[in-house]
């Protein structure tokens, strides 16, 4: 039950994009088409789950035992996540070209995104267990996918809308993001965490 609560909490209540305001750049940059937005979301979910595991291991087996968690957290998380994703990318490219094509350029792009680092730091902060970290990472990714796909859907529809001239392009995208964020505020209190 607790795992489910962590998962749902990461998807809707504390959605990374709309409540924590992490990963805004891909959220605005890659949300012009539903198709690409969804692939981006899948890639983010993949990397988040992976980095949740990696950062938990680093935190609990290297940083805490040596008393380094206060000042080496960020740099070691980034180092580990970036190399791990690079490694996984190579493996995927070799073993499954179809999956590599689907994730495409997004995979290496998001390794150093703030949402990924934010996730790693949050896991350390909340002192989750390994399984809980995985659930949290997967939920965060799913929440990101949900948000970016919705955003892309709205922006696609908006092509046909009558947007006032000064608000065209990035301006209206930011307004939509704000409105979506306000809508997601409605989920707060759904789960007491």
């Amino acid at each position, binding site marked *: 039950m607790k795992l489910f609560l962590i998962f749902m909490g990461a998807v809707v209540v504390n959605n990374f994009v709309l409540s924590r305001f992490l990963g805004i750049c891909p959220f605005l940059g890659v949300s012009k088409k539903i198709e690409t937005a969804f692939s981006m979301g899948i890639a983010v979910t993949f990397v988040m789950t992976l980095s949740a595991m990696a950062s938990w291991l680093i935190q609990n087996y*290297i940083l805490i035992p040596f008393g380094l968690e206060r000042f080496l957290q960020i740099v070691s998380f980034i*180092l580990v996540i970036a190399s791990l994703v*690079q490694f996984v990318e190579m493996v995927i490219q070799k073993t499954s070209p179809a999956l590599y094509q689907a994730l495409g350029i997004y995979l290496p792009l998001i390794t150093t995104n703030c949402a990924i680092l934010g996730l790693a730091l949050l896991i350390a902060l909340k002192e989750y267990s390994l399984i809980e970290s995985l659930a949290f990472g997967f939920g965060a990714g799913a929440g990101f996918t949900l948000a970016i796909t919705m955003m892309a859907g709205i922006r696609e529809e908006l092509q046909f809308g009558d947007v006032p001239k000064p608000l065209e392009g990035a301006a209206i995208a930011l307004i939509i993001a704000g409105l979506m964020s306000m809508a997601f505020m409605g989920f707060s209190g759904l789960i007491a965490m």
Partner: protein
Amino acid sequence: MDNNVFLISVISMGGIGAFFGIVLAYASKKFAIKVDPRIEQINEALPGANCGACGYPGCSGFAEAIVEGEAPVDGCPVGGREVAEKIAGIMGVEASATQERSVARLYCQGDCEVAVDRALYDGVQDCRAAQAVNGGPKACKYGCLGFGTCAEVCPFDAITMDENHLPHVDIEKCTGCGKCVQACPRNLFELVGVSKEVHVGCKSQERGKDVMKVCKAGCIGCRKCVKACPFDAMKFKNNLAKIDYEKCTSCMVCVEVCPTNATYSDFDKRKKAVITDECIGCTLCKKVCPVEAITGEVKVKHQVDPEKCIGCSLCFEKCPKDAIKMIREE
């Protein structure tokens, strides 16, 4: 204590870094994907303009298609011969030798001085837009509208509009990408080999009398050029002379006889045959000359009469000793 923390930090960070470094180095070897090195080489040989004239998405798409055998090695119209030979070298095949650089030529000479307008057009200054408004302002249904759409679409700045609103192609800059051929609503551009010097600058299929009414530089269908051509290269169809570039040797005889200068060329570029001392007097050139410009006896060095020579280069091709040179007159 402080020293200790410092040491542990360095060792653990260095350890993590070294570990992943080694793993990645190993993985890059172990999981290396073999990309055909020829793709990269061909990509470098290509012009890199990504114009899409080859029909593939950009230069790299074309390079991949060549390696997969889908595209011909000389499929890049922009790079022309030089690039085709480079690619052929990379692929280990021969570039087809007949391929020469193609350039766009305009088949109309009706600028605003020689061709009359039949209406005043005040709309969007674009040939395609003008053509849509009842065929545009020009009285000639076939001629250049002169709004410079070709110059606008040319990605290489090879087309300029002169003061009489007629486009001029700079054949040095032209790469034969064909953008203007597609853009011209009256299909006045054609891609022709760069060595071809003679062109019929008219596409009007009206009868001679009607052509004369609307344009002073149009083909009036007199067929003088057809009769004058020594190589049967001038065809006549639909009241219009048309050059068969397979047969044309750029001898410019047709240009001399054309009464309206619809068939045009640059006489400065006319070549003359000159016989060198290599000549053994075999008389082959004398026999092949269509204008009897070569004189001489058997086993004596022959002479070319420069007044008569039309620069057709038939003798040049025929000579078994390579004793004939084609020289451009100064």
